[in-house]
């Protein structure tokens, strides 16, 4: 089977700096993959490139959610989302003046279509659509486990809940691939554990594949089917958690650093 996401030979340069350097990465249906690497390795930049926020300097991005393969290069971020790639942000970017429910409702934007006239006249179709949006958003909140905050302003949420809201919002776009940028950052061990369960639940029940960037090695090792390691924008290793743990390059470039920090 073709991979659902296939990035070939991608490079992203900022001036002289190659934040990503001829990177190849493939993600398969139903897998939980992790992208790891030291700070500044280019992981977030990788997300920004495939979601259309940055324009990669060179390389190809393909998706294949069903049978047909499509090229994503040059598409605007909103189109990429529509095609089924959803993401969260490392530095939380919620809509701060909206409630939690509304944040998730925004995620439904690309799968609904009411326009200005519909909004003004509120015809039957628009009403039905609004109901659909509200109910879908609420059920996602329940699934992610933050339904108790439904009417709170997004900014007033505790940190862990904000990270979860980012996930909820992304799920509302009906993605086939969910890109999580450091979802456990700033969480305590208990919160991290329940995030672990949540990610598995999303994969199993919601039928999404997941690519996550994460520094918490325990989480990465326990969750991932496949791990990609980057350093200075280049891929230095790929494999199962077992393979990665014993890879000398990785230990040198990444796990080595990690153990010094700890």
């Amino acid at each position, binding site marked *: 089977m073709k991979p659902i996401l296939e990035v070939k030979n991608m490079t992203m340069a*900022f001036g002289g700096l190659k934040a990503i350097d001829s990177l190849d990465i493939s993600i398969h249906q139903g897998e939980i993959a992790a992208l790891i690497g030291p700070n500044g390795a280019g992981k977030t930049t990788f997300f920004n490139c495939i979601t259309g*926020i*940055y324009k990669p300097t060179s390389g190809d991005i393909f998706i294949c959610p069903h049978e047909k393969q499509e090229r994503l290069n040059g598409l605007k971020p909103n189109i990429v989302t529509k095609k089924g790639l959803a993401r969260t*942000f490392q530095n939380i970017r919620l809509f701060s003046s909206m409630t939690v429910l509304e944040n998730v409702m925004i995620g439904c934007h690309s799968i609904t279509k009411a326009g200005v006239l519909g909004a003004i006249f509120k015809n039957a179709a628009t009403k039905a659509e609004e109901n659909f949006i509200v109910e879908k958003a609420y059920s996602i909140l329940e699934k992610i486990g933050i339904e108790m905050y439904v009417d709170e302003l997004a900014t007033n949420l505790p940190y862990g809940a904000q990270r979860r809201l980012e996930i909820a919002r992304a799920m509302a776009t009906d993605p086939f691939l969910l890109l999580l940028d450091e979802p456990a950052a700033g969480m305590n061990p208990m919160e991290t554990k329940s995030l672990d369960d949540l990610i598995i639940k999303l994969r199993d029940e919601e039928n999404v594949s997941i690519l996550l960037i994460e520094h918490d090695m325990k989480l990465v090792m326990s969750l991932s089917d496949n791990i990609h390691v980057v350093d200075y924008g280049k891929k230095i290793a790929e494999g199962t958690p077992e393979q990665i743990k014993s890879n000398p390059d990785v230990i040198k470039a990444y796990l080595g650093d990690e153990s010094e920090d700890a």
Partner: protein
Amino acid sequence: MDFDYFSYLFFGGLTRGSIYALIALGYTMVYGIIQLINFAHGEIYMIGAFTGLIIASVLTMMGLPSLAVIIIAAAAAIIYASAYGFTIEKIAYKPLRDANAPRLSALISAIGMSLFLQNYVLLAQTSDFLPFPSLIPDFEFWEPYSHIWTSAELVIFITTVIVMILLTFLIKFTKIGKAMRATSQDKTMASLLGINVNRVITFTFVVGSATAAIGGILIASHIGQINFYMGFIAGIKAFVAAVLGGIGSIPGAVIGALILGWTESFFTGYISSDYEDVFAFLFLVGILILRPSGILGKSETQKV
């Protein structure tokens, strides 16, 4: 084509451009440091001109010799404009920065400040045009050329060049100049390195205001009259110049100002003077749409 007329327009454009450059510098420096369009900058320039006029008139009536009048009035204008720049920053921008307010808020605050200062001068002084004495004498040795480039225009040009050189020196080689450059690249990093960011910002406002005041006196003595509204249109045009050159870039501001000065001069000289301001605005709109980062500005990908 009449070569004299062409030269006349050329030097006229050069003079205009020099004045735009003096104002544009303030915009570009402030923008470079805090990414704010200091809408009230044009008003500083106006206040500089008013202060200069008021002080000069008082001193003249007191019977001081004209050279002393020029020097004291110019100094007063520069000092007062800097003081206003300093105060505006403290009142209208710093509290917003401290509160991490969105850029939109800072811009609205700047517009409010501009409106306030215009009307402050209108109420405290007058809404009429005030005649401004010609501070710059006609040099005799320049007489043969004065039909295409008056000696006053020459002085304006030379002053601008001197200010430019001083400013470049300040930014390139002094300690505070280095701090300014560091702050404009990364505020957080700069403050971690022990730079007093607030002081740098204040300093930037003061220097920008001082150059604007120099521009204010020069143009007022060149045109021969001032009013409370003069800062607005000049400010907008200087802003156009700064954007054209690439906002944040000091040589860019000068190049942009000269290009704007020349195009305006030739446009009004050869085509039509009715639409002079329309032209400047169209120019602005065109640049921003076609090349938002300007001639010398670098286009950046916003970090996400």
